[in-house]
């Protein structure tokens, strides 16, 4: 009996009655990676395991887990690999810091360029077609 239920779940992610909970589940489906497929979230995959994982998301939501608890649950079960949102830790701090570092470097370059240009001579000639 439970096997039949599981197989059905694989084909159809049994939607939760509560629309708010189903929306949460669908958002999580996009963040959790199908462990068998090549770079696909479980929302997208037609593989059977993806169906099982979608059912599991709904099971955990029905059990009252928060989104963070569900992510932790999948991480314990399948490893960091399963989360498209990498956790912040010793290995990934550089990843999360990179945008700030790049942005900072860009700003510094712009400011340095302005200082250089302020020193440079100004030679303004209006071009045709432009005011």
């Amino acid at each position: 009996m439970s096997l039949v239920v599981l197989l059905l779940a694989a084909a159809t992610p049994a939607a939760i009655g509560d629309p708010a909970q189903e929306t949460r589940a669908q958002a999580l489906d996009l963040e959790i990676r199908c462990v068998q497929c090549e770079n696909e979230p479980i929302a997208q995959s037609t593989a059977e395991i993806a169906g099982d994982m979608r059912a599991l998301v709904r099971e955990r939501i029905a059990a009252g887990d928060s989104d963070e608890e569900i992510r932790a649950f999948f991480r314990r079960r399948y490893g960091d690999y399963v989360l498209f949102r990498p956790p912040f830790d010793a290995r990934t701090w550089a990843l999360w810091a990179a945008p700030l570092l790049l942005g900072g470097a860009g700003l510094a370059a712009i400011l340095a360029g302005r200082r250089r240009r302020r020193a440079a001579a100004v030679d303004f000639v209006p071009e045709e077609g432009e005011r």
Partner: protein
Amino acid sequence: MEGRRQAMIAEIGAFVAALALALSLAQGGLGLAYANSEARAAAAAALAQAAALCCAIAFALLITLFLQSDFTVAVVAANSHIDKPLIYKIAGAWGNHEGSMLLWCFVSALFGAIFASVRGKQSLGLWSRTIGVQGLVTVGALIYTLFLSNPFARLDPAPFVGSGLNPLLQDPALAVHPPLLYMGYVGMSVPFSLALAALIEGRADQAWARALRPWTLIAWTCLTLGIGLGSYWAYYELGWGGWWFWDPVENASFMPWLVAAALVHSAIVTERRGSLASWTILLAIMGFGLALLGTFLVRSGVLTSVHAFAVDPKRGIAVLILLGVALGAGFGLYAWRAPKLAQPSGFAAVSRESMLVWNNFGLAVAAGVVLIGTIYPLLVEALGGGLISVGPPFFNATVAPLLAMLFLLLPLGPMLTWRVGDIRGALLKLVPAIVLALITLIATLVLTQWRAAPALGLMLGVWLVAGGLIYLWTRLQRGTGKLSTKIVILPLAVWSMSLAHIGAGVLTLGAVAETAFRTETAVALAPGEGVAFAGRRVTLLDVGSTEGPNYSATRANFRVDQTNGASSVSAERRYFTTSPMPTTEVGILSGFDGDLYLALGEQVRGSEGAWTVRLYHNPLVQFIFIGVILMALGGALSLVSLARKRAAA
């Protein structure tokens, strides 16, 4: 007899490609060592044309092999099938690794030949050296193709029918998607060659930027269309309603696109004002580097896993060496020669130039973030840190704010004058756009019960579209005469910029609406049963079998009842003889408010005649693809405008 004639084609192909290699090598040597001699430079140009001709012949011969289904050739056997429709036999020539690399060589040689044929007002040194560097780019690509992924390699024993193309790729969009992307990738090689030639010359002046712009525009426009087409294909073919997933393969094309977009803008500053020349050079080098990196990521197998790459690392390492040589030469020359380039001219903190600097900041930092996010899992795995995934949550959280900043400033740029701009005047003219954007913000906040992200996103989209229209309007206000005459005589450059910017706004509206407000559900339906969804009633009428040229399909017919009447739509699952996995052919019913999107799943086990059907409602999803088309149209018009200016000059 027939067999013998066929047997020759692959060998002739390999020979012609080898001839192209020799010609390109001579082109590189002569072009770089032109020694102020018109005759030598002209010889390099002629060699570029001959090399392109040879590459064209080699590529045509490869297509011939596919048309003949000559399964003694390994690539044809692995990627074609006797039953395949004609168009896909042709497209199969570039729908695989080896053939696509030959296409890469062909495009590189072709662009070199076109560049060599149109000298314009470029100095002899710049023209000749650019031809030379471009020749060496083609040499690198040809060496890789001939020695590490020869499309003309034979197979013994030959199979009778061929293994067939991946059925997902049997699609008209996918027939043109790779050539467009390759024209974009390889298009970035001409700005790269121009940048290196300028560094060798020690001069990057306005004439140089004028030569650079059309090539950057060609690359950017092709990348825009190629990425858009790939995205549209993913939308209607993969059957889950999504159009962008920050997949490494998507990122591989998005990074050069971002840099090309930055380059399109910085080259304008260099051409008009002589400023930012050394930054423009750096962007041109990085743009081609990212295009090569994209080729590496997609073609080396490194994306599947570092281990998959390690199993057969020869090709990957070869592309990395090419990348290293290109970037090493580029950055080395840059460090050595860039300080000697002409002094920049000044501009104020509020000016057209400064806005274009912020544009470049946003686009370049976004490209850097995408690059780090894409290669970070590979680095962690290579360093023994195990497997991690970096996906949409990371990219959305980092790239979206950068693009938001960019879009917030964008409508101001065209309103400001060069050198010193009048911010008050610009904002005053933009008041209607500001009002519309704020109304959108507040209305969305109220209607969505205070969801900030979609409200900000839609606000930015409206701001871009309205800002672009106001710019067009202010340009039409200038001068005297009838509006209709003024519309006709308005410079193409104004149209192209406005279209591209409005396109970015339309794309933003579609992307935000689709991401934030899409709804989906999955149901089991037996024929005759229906379901209420997104304000419509969808009824499954019947499920039957149909036959295609090389597949059989299960087809489900639906009736959709909406307020304005009933329509019918069908969805299929296709089973190809050459592949175990069925493909989905979704049913899409486009309406004013977006797409109703139906994907047929499997038959429900243990029940008589019920089928899984997934239903999606994707609001404003058409805006995404309309936005892409508008942006590409902007790029194309800009090219026409530059060509006209050149003809007039």
